[in-house]
C-alpha cells in the first residue's frame, strides 16, 4: 500500500494547561479529500495547523508524505528541524485561511508570484505566466492588478487559493475558508475547491459547509474536545451518526 499523504498517530497539543488535542490518529490518502467538522474549540483548526508545523505537537507523531513534520529522527531521539528546513517542507503544503491573509501591500498578481520568486527562485516572466493562468483558473483574470482592499471577500479568498497553488503543493489545507464570507460569495470559493478536488489534489478541509462535505469529501471526521468522536464516509456520518455527540451537533447545524 502506498504511503498516505498525512499520517497522524496519537497527536497531542497543549497550550499551557489547556489540552487542545488529546490523541488524534488518522490517515489521509493521496488524492483524498478529508473534511473535519466540529464545534468551535474542538481543536480542528489546531490540528490542521500542526500539519504544516504552524503549531508544534507535544506528543505523538505526524508524517506528511512519509517524513516527520518539524523533526528528524536520529537513533531514538527527535531533533528539531532548522527554520530553513521547516520552511522547505512548508513550501510543499498550501494553506488557505479563514481571514484570507492576503498581503495587503501587494496586488493580486504580486501576492501570487511572491513565494515562487522568493522561495523557489522562479524567473519573473515564468512566475507571472503561471500566476496569470492560476488567476484565470479561479476566475479572476481581470483582477490581477487590484489590491486586496479593492476585492470582495470571495475574490480575496480565491486569490489566496491561487497564491497557495502557485507553489505547486502536494497537499492543501483549508481552515474554514468560507466562514468569513457573505453567504452569496461562498459558492464561488466552493466551486474552486470542488474543481481542485476533481483534479486529484489531496485536501484537508476544516469547514461548516455540510453540503460541500457530503458532496466532495472522501472522509468526514467529527471532532469534539480534542478527540475524534466519529469518522467515516460523509454520507454515512451525516445521515446516520452513531454517537450521541455527533447527532446533537448535526441537529444544530443541518
Amino acid at each position, binding site marked *: 500500500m502506498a504511503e498516505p499523504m498525512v499520517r497522524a498517530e496519537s497527536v497531542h497539543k497543549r497550550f499551557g494547561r489547556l489540552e487542545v488535542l488529546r490523541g488524534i490518529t488518522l490517515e489521509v490518502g493521496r488524492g483524498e479529500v478529508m473534511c473535519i467538522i466540529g464545534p468551535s474549540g474542538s481543536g480542528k483548526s489546531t490540528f490542521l495547523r500542526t500539519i504544516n508545523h504552524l503549531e508544534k505537537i507535544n506528543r505523538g507523531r505526524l508524517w506528511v508524505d512519509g517524513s516527520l513534520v518539524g523533526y528528524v529522527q536520529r537513533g531514538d531521539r527527535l531533533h528539531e528541524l532548522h527554520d530553513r528546513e521547516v520552511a522547505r517542507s*512548508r513550501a510543499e503544503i498550501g494553506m488557505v485561511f479563514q481571514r484570507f491573509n492576503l498581503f495587503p501591500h501587494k*496586488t493580486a498578481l504580486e501576492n501570487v508570484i511572491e*513565494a515562487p520568486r522568493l*522561495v523557489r527562485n522562479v524567473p519573473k516572466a515564468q512566475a507571472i505566466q503561471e500566476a496569470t493562468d492560476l488567476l484565470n483558473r479561479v476566475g479572476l483574470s481581470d483582477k490581477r492588478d487590484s489590491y486586496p482592499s479593492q476585492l470582495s471577500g470571495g475574490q480575496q479568498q480565491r486569490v*489566496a487559493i491561487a*497564491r497557495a497553488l502557485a507553489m505547486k503543493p502536494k497537499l492543501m489545507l483549508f481552515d474554514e475558508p468560507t466562514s468569513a464570507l457573505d453567504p452569496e460569495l461562498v459558492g464561488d470559493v466552493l466551486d474552486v475547491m470542488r474543481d481542485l478536488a476533481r483534479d486529484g489534489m489531496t485536501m484537508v478541509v476544516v469547514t461548516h459547509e455540510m453540503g460541500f462535505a457530503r458532496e466532495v469529501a472522501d472522509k468526514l471526521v467529527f471532532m469534539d474536545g480534542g478527540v475524534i468522536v466519529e469518522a467515516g464516509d460523509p454520507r454515512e456520518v451525516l445521515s446516520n451518526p452513531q454517537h450521541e455527540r455527533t447527532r446533537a451537533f448535526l441537529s444544530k447545524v443541518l
Partner: protein
Amino acid sequence: MASGPVGLPQPEAEDIKAVPVRHPGRWVASAVVLVIAVAAVRSVVTNQRFGWGHVGHYLFTSQVLHGVLVTLELTAGAQVLGVVLGVLLAVMRLSANPLISGAGWLYVWFFRGTPVLAQVLFWYNIAALYPVFHLGIPFGPSFISFNANSISAFLVLVLALGLNEGAYMSEIVRAGIISVDEGQNEAALSLGMTRLQTMRRIVLPQAMRVVIPPTGNETISMLKTTSLAFAVGTIADLLTTASRIYDNNFLVQPLLIVASLWYLAITSVLYVGQYYLERYYARGSSRELPLTPWQRVRRGIFSAQHDQIAMVPVAFERHEGGE
C-alpha cells in the same frame, strides 16, 4: 412610476436645500485672530531692530550656506545611523532569547534615560576615558587599534546623536512590527518563507505605514538637535556659524533669524518628502489614493481648458465585476 416591492408607489425625491446653522462665535474668534495677526506683522515689519536688511544680506553668504550643508550632513548621518540601529534593536527586543531582548531593552533604557547633551559631551571627551581603542577578544589579542583623539568632532557628533536616536527609533520600529497582523506571518510562513524572508518582504514593508510618520517627526527633531554642535564649538553647523558671525558684528537677532529661516526651509522640504513616502507605503491600504497637490493642479488646468469641473476619480466599487 413603478410600484415598489412593498406595493407602494416609489416617487422621485428632490435634493435638500436647508438653511445652514449660523456660528456667530466663530466670527468673533476670527476677528480677534485677525487683529492679533495684523498687530504682529506690523510690529515685525516696522521695528527697525529686526534688521531685515542684514537678514537678506547674510541669508545666502557662502559661510551660512556652508553651515546649512554641515547641518544637513549631520542630520542625514545621525538619522541614518539611528534608523539602522533602531531596526536592529527592535528585532533584538522581539527575540525569544532573553539575553538578546534584554540587551536591547538595556540599551533603550540607558539612551532614553540620559540627556542627549550629556551624551554628546561624554562622547566628545571619550579620549579622557579611552585614549586608545582596541578591537579584539577580551583578555586576548587585539586586531585593530586607533587613537581616540584622531576621530573628528563631526564624526563624534554623528555617532553620539545616532546612538541616541537608535533608542527612539527602535521603539517606533517595534510598534510598527507588532502592528502587523499575525495572520501575515502565518500566511508567509505557510508559503515556505523563512522567518527572515517573512520579516523583510512581508512584515517590515507593512510596518512602514506605522513607522514613517513618527520617523519624519524624528528627522525634523534631529535637524534641530544637530544644533547641539554649538556645545562642542568646533563644528561649523548652521547655528554655530550664525553665532560666530554675530560674535563679531553683534547682529544677534538678524543672524538667529537667518538660521531659523534655513531650519524652517529644510523642515518644509522634509514635509514634502514625508508626504510622498507615506503615499508610497499606503498603497493597497485605501481603495484609491488621493491626488497629490501637483496632480490636482495639473488636473485643474486640464479640466479648465475643457470648461469642466476637476473630478477626483470615482472610488473603486467594492463588488465591482459582480460577485
